[in-house]
């Protein structure tokens, strides 16, 4: 369909959640905004292929996800220690307890396999149905369900069960978090 004013407004209204999705996927704000920009360019360039009345956010998320996937594969070959260096920059930053808890969670999220991470975000944070998430990821509904379940149990293992040695916060951080009372 052509780009009407209301469609343009709807696309703009999707930007905040597209950014949140991009940041959750990439763990990097700058890269996430580049992804969102590329997504908007693609969407507007291919706006004729959008079916009026269909799910606009799902369509945009699909574009972003596919861009992230191709980008990820490319970068993987270029930069080997991407997540390692990111983890280090986080560890050297003193911040409030809420922020640290945030980063602890984000790091755990980054340890999930990509398939599981995106399924969990789409269903657990973006609020898509299992059906929409399956359409976005191009897989069966049952596959999404099992990925979400595996993601949840892995996160719970990383954060609350046996992640203490290789993942848990150091003593300073622990003291801050403990002091916050949750």
């Amino acid at each position, binding site marked *: 369909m052509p780009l009407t004013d209301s469609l343009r407004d709807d696309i703009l209204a999707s930007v*905040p959640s597209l950014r949140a999705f991009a940041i959750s996927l990439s763990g990097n704000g700058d890269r996430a905004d*580049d992804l969102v920009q590329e997504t908007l360019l693609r969407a507007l*360039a291919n706006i004729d292929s959008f079916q009026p009345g269909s799910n606009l956010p799902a369509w945009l998320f699909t574009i972003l996800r596919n861009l992230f996937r191709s980008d990820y594969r490319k970068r993987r070959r270029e930069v080997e220690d991407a997540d390692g260096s990111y983890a280090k920059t986080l560890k050297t930053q003193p911040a409030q307890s809420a922020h640290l808890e945030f980063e602890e*969670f984000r790091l755990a999220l980054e340890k999930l396999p990509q398939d599981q991470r995106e399924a969990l975000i789409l269903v657990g944070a973006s609020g898509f149905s299992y059906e929409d998430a399956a359409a976005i990821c191009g897989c069966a509904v049952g596959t999404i369900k099992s990925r979400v379940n595996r993601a949840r*149990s892995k996160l719970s293992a990383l954060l609350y069960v046996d992640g203490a040695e290789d993942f848990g916060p150091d003593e300073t951080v622990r003291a801050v978090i403990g002091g916050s009372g949750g």
Partner: protein
Amino acid sequence: MKDVKSRNAAPGKQGGLNAEIQSRIGHQLRAMYDDVVRQGVPDRFAELIRKLDTPEGNAQLGAAGDKNDGRE
């Protein structure tokens, strides 16, 4: 948080997912996500869409649609 951690560090770890932990994970996931959502639409994106919504911008889009990666 400390309580949850120490309690579940006990043996018999993964005997079914603890509902409390699951709700905590769900909460943290949404908190992280909503933190970004609340930032709204950064100017660069509002501008981008405004700029592209012109005849010149449309011509540019034609090019962006073909290219795989225009930025790098």
